[in-house]
Each structure stands twice: as structure tokens, then as C-alpha cells.
């Protein structure tokens, strides 16, 4: 974290517009009879960088996945880019090609090379010529510092490299909104730094970002807003400064005391 801390991010440089990117209202979700998400209300503006924190099992991943409709919500509504998420297949396809996602467990395609992993969706969804798709892919692979691995298979990479490929792959679609689910879980401190740097760069370019992470350094430096979840609810949300220095809710205080003490 020390490295990040030394870097001065000019937060005012990052554009946040008035345009609403994601609008979640009164969203509820059950797994069977287990109430995972309760009355979630959240408005994300275009260009915002939001960090989602919370104890394990609080529903962070589930919420993120709902935005992509990898999970179906059962009550309330979610609007992404002005399109309401319903069972309409066409809407879902449209939204998914606009929303990138980087999984907690990478989910790389083991039968394709790194490069093919990165070009698959651009070619088949965006209908971009192969050559051009490969150029974009190499660009992002360079950004995460693994261009030399392009022709290897995922099984031949280390965990950290895999995680970087996952990030690059989701960026290759050039989505307007990115969802990151603990993008640094498998990395060692040196690598963490590199990845966070890349994300800061993206943030500077104005991409809307939702990031589940426990790297509070990232939250402090990059986020506009920190959202704290517990037991399926948003318990507190605030600007990072306020959130860390002056938490309001009891639950938040407890959590922060653990994280900071660590």
C-alpha cells in the first residue's frame, strides 16, 4: 500500500457526470427462502468509482452479479444504461456487452490461449476483425504486464498472471461499466500494486467501476464512494474520507476496526 499512498491521484481529474449509469431500486433477491439481498437502493452515475466492502457472505458478489443478470432478482428493478433488466433476452444481450465483469475465480477458458481468451468476445460479439481484436488484446495484456504469455494456455500461468488475464479479457470488450469482484485476491503485494495502478488508469479515463475489494488503500485513493454491506443490505455509504474517518453505523465501526488493525 505504501506505493499507492505515495502516488498522488488527482481525483478531481476523473469525470463524474450527472448521467445515471445504474439505477437499482427496492431490489430484493432470495435463494429459495434465503433472503440474500434486501431492499437494495443504489444509484451509480456515469464515471463513478464505487468500492463495495463488507464481511464475507454479506451479498456483495450477489449484488454485482445481479447487475449483469447472472442472477435474477425477484423484486424491485435494476436499470442499466437506461434499459430495465427483465427476462427480455435482447435487453440482456445488450447490457452484457456493455458491462464487463471480472470474476473472483477468473473463469478463464482453459482450452483457449490467453490471446484467444481475450479476442473471443470482441470477434463474436462486437464483430471486430480478428487482426484488430488481437491488437486491442495485446494492448491490454501489455497494460497488465504479461504480453509475453499471449500464446500460452491458462493452465500454464501462475495464479497472479491468471488474474491479470481475467482483467485484460474483460477490458478487451471496452465496456462502459466494469464490475470487479475482488480483483486482487490471488496476487502478491508487488503484483497488487501493478493491478491497482492499471485500475487507477482506467478510472482516470472515466470508466464507471464497481469494485468489491478489501484493499482499503484502493478505496481511499480512487473511489468516489464506499458502500458497506452487511447481511444483504447496504448499511452505509459515504465518501472515502468520511467513511474511514467517521463511520456512522455501529456495524461499520466494528468492521473498520478489524480491517485497520490487521
Amino acid at each position, binding site marked *: 500500500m505504501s506505493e499507492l499512498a505515495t502516488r498522488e491521484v488527482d481525483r478531481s481529474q476523473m469525470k463524474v457526470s450527472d448521467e445515471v449509469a445504474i439505477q437499482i431500486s427496492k431490489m430484493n433477491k432470495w435463494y429459495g427462502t434465503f433472503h440474500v439481498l434486501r431492499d437494495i437502493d443504489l444509484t451509480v452515475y456515469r464515471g463513478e468509482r464505487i468500492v463495495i466492502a463488507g464481511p464475507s457472505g454479506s451479498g456483495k458478489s450477489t449484488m454485482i452479479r445481479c447487475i449483469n443478470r447472472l442472477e435474477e432478482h425477484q423484486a424491485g428493478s435494476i436499470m442499466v444504461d437506461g434499459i430495465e433488466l427483465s427476462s427480455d433476452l435482447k435487453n440482456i444481450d445488450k447490457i452484457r456487452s456493455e458491462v*464487463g465483469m471480472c470474476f473472483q475465480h477468473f473463469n478463464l*477458458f*482453459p*482450452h483457449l490461449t490467453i490471446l484467444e481468451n481475450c479476442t473471443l*468476445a470482441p*470477434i463474436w*460479439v462486437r464483430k471486430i476483425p480478428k487482426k484488430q481484436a488481437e491488437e486491442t488484446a495485446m494492448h491490454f495484456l501489455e497494460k497488465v504486464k504479461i504480453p509475453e504469455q499471449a500464446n500460452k*494456455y491458462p493452465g500454464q500461468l501462475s495464479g497472479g498472471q491468471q488474474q491479470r488475464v481475467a482483467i485484460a479479457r474483460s477490458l478487451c470488450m471496452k465496456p462502459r461499466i466494469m464490475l470487479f469482484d475482488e480483483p486482487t485476491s490471488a496476487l502478491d503485494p508487488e503484483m497488487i500494486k501493478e493491478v491497482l495502478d492499471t485500475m487507477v488508469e482506467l478510472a482516470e479515463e472515466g470508466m464507471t467501476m464497481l469494485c468489491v475489494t478489501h484493499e482499503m488503500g484502493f478505496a481511499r485513493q480512487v473511489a468516489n464512494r464506499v458502500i458497506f454491506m452487511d447481511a444483504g443490505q447496504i448499511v452505509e455509504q459515504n465518501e472515502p474520507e468520511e467513511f474511514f474517518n467517521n463511520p456512522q453505523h455501529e456495524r461499520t465501526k466494528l468492521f473498520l476496526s478489524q480491517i485497520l488493525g490487521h
Partner: protein
Amino acid sequence: MATISDPPERGFRLSQLIFDTRYRSMTIQVVAMILIGLLLSWLISNTIHNLEALGKDFDFGFLSQPAGYDINQQLIDYNNQMTHGRAALVGILNTLLVAVLGCALATVLGVVAGVLRLSNNWIVSRLTAVYVEGFRNVPLLLWIVLIFALMTESMPTPRDFRGEDGSSMILGESVAITNRGVYIPNVVFSRSLGGNEVAAPEPEAPAAAAATTNMAGTYGASRIATGGAGVQTGQTDSAATTGAAEGSGAEGGEVIPTSSGWDWLLILAVLIAGSIGAKVLGKRATRIQEATGKRPTTLPLQIASVLVPLIVVLVLLGASLDKPELGGFNFDGGVHLRNSLIALWLALSLYTGAFIAEIVRGGILAISKGQTEAAYALGLRPGTTMNLVILPQALRVIIPPLISQFLNLTKNSSLAIAVGYMDVRSTLGGITINQTGRELEGMLLLGLFYLVLSLLISGVMNVYNSSVKLKER
């Protein structure tokens, strides 16, 4: 600092035979070798002694003696004056026939059932579960016997097709399902490459032949032919019309349509060429996609590239259908799929299909949900996801056990004995052994045949395995 001792002597001691890793394995292997050798020589010397005591010898000469028995289903020319060797060959072909047919149907059934079992439709998945569990847990032999009994007991006899109120043929009078098997039309050619005979100029003959051909023309349009070539409705139509035109146009000596191996070879060649053409079209589409990003629609073109040449060839050969007709005791003409073949084929396919269903289900489940989700998150459509992400991975899991199921099916076809299907076990391993008393030689040949077959199949599997393994790591 202690002085360093010299490395110990590298002399050879007897105890090294047991305790040194290098020699120990040699010792064990030599002992094993000797034991195996002793066992084999013991078995062989016993056999020699026993043969001597029985006054028999070890001789494959019986293969060239006349067989004397008839075989009902022959893929190659055979009659009871030909040799035992020829009879064995007929049996081998019959075994291969039922094995190939069985593998094909079992794959279809298994894939369908495996996918349906994953369906989120409760009734459908339950129903397929009943199918799978039912067939997996009851002996194959019982199924064979059961299906055979079902066919002989509940289907009408050919006799029942006589008269007004009896059973009638289906699919426009072209297919008859009887308790002796199913009679289906055969495709014959009036300009066969093997040459056509011309009917003897008997007074009624041309008329009758013309009538028959005319009928083919009339019904041809509304009929799906299920003959050996897998011809589809469209061509049947034109082919039959051609046949009709032929029939009415011919004067005097009527050409009798027949089919020869050459015709089928030509059709096969055309089919292969057509599918190569289709592949080339697909490749071209990929090239265009890589260059421009847009993939042109190719499916209709691909289908046409297979079908058009085929239709042309069929018309040129003057294809028509030879339908089964009720003769003296049985139906004449057409292709007779005997009960024994059908029962064996169905039972083998249903039984193996149940196992394949489980393999397919397992293969699809083995590809973790994360893969589908990742593909969806990238915006890929379900169809594309299946083709580009799930299937390529699932196939690696599915193919090896699938092939060993094919192997099992082939071996299980030896249960033909239960329904009197004349496979290689019934001819070479059954009647021939029985008539000649050459059980040692016969069983040896039979075992060798199956062994070679299964080694071939598992060889193919190994090649496949190593080819996909290379890609992964």
C-alpha cells in the same frame, strides 16, 4: 572439521540384487518373467497333451471346407456351398453392421437423453431418469430377449396383411412392420453402373413392371424413403418421377432396375465431395469473418453443396424405389430388416444410450458453471457459448468414455446368440465350431477378431486423447 570420507566402493555385492534400486527391479522382473514363462509353457504343454489324448490336431484347414448351412442375413454373397471361412466373414460383417448401427443410434439416444436429463422441465428430467436407471440396472440380455419377444408377440404376421380388414403397410404402403421384421423400400437404379438386365419379353411382364414403376411415381412424392442411402424426400420425388418416365417410355424389353456396389460407391463419393465442399465454404466464412468481422450466412449454401450433386447423380442413375410387396409367404422386394437385427440393435442402443446419457450429463456438468457465466458476462449468446466454450471442453471429458462405451456395445453384440442373429459368434464361434469340432481354433480366431477390433478402437481413442492433451498444456 571432519575429514570427508571417500565415496564407498562401487563393488557388486549379492545383496544389491535385492536392496539396490537399480538391480532390485531387474531381479523382480527376471523372477516375474520366469514365472510367466513357466505358466505359459505349462498351459501350452497341457494343451498339446490333451489334444493328443483326444486324437485331435491344431489345424485351420476347416476354414476352407464347405459350410453346408445357410445364413439369412448376408451382406456379401453367400450360400451353403461356400466355405466356413466365407461364413465367418459374413458373420464378421453382420457383427460390424449391428455395431455401427448400434453406436450411431446409441449416440443419438444418449446425447438427447443426457441433455434432456439436465432440462429444468421436471417431468422430462424425471422421465429420462427413469429411462436411464431402468436400462442401466437391468441386464442387457433381458432387454434383448424382452424386445425380441415384444416384436414377435405383438406385431402382425405377414399373413395379417392379406385381406381387407388385416393390418396395412404404413408410409404410403411402402413400409411393412411385421413380426418377422420390418420391410422397407430399397433404392434401385434403372441405369445402374453394374449393368441392368432386361426383362424377358413375356407378354405381361412389361406391363406389370411399368405398373410397378408407375406406382412408385405416384407415391414417391408423398413418401420419405428410409433406404440405405438416407435419401430425402426431395430427391425421392424427382427420382421416382424419372423412374415413371422411364417406365412408360420404354418399349418392348423392360429394363429391370437393380443396384450394384458401384452405384453406392459413386453416391458415397459424391456425398464426401459435397461435405468437403461444405467445409470449404465454412472455412471461407471464417476467413471473411477474420478480415471483416462479419460472418456471411453459409448454412443454406452448405446444405445445397451436399444435396444438389446428390440429386443430380440420383437422377442420372435413374433411381427409383423398390417397395416390398406381399408375396407367397413373406413380403418380396425392398430391404428386409430382420427381427433379430432390430431387437439386437434396439436393445444395444437403448442400453448403451442410457450409459452415454450419463456420460454426456457428467461431461456437461463437469464444465463448471463459471465458464458459462464468464461467456455470458462477455456478451456471448447461448448458442455461441455452447459452440465455442462449452462443447470444446465437454467433448474432452465425454469422448474417451464414449468410445469405451462403443467398445462395450461392440462386444455386447455377441449376445446376438439370444435372438439368433447371425453374427461372427454365431457363425464362426457357433455353427462352424459345432459342425467341425474345432473349438480351440474357432474360439481362438473369434477372440482374436474381437481383440483386434477393440485394440483398433482404443488405439483411435488414445490418438484422440493425446491430441487434445497437447492442446491443453
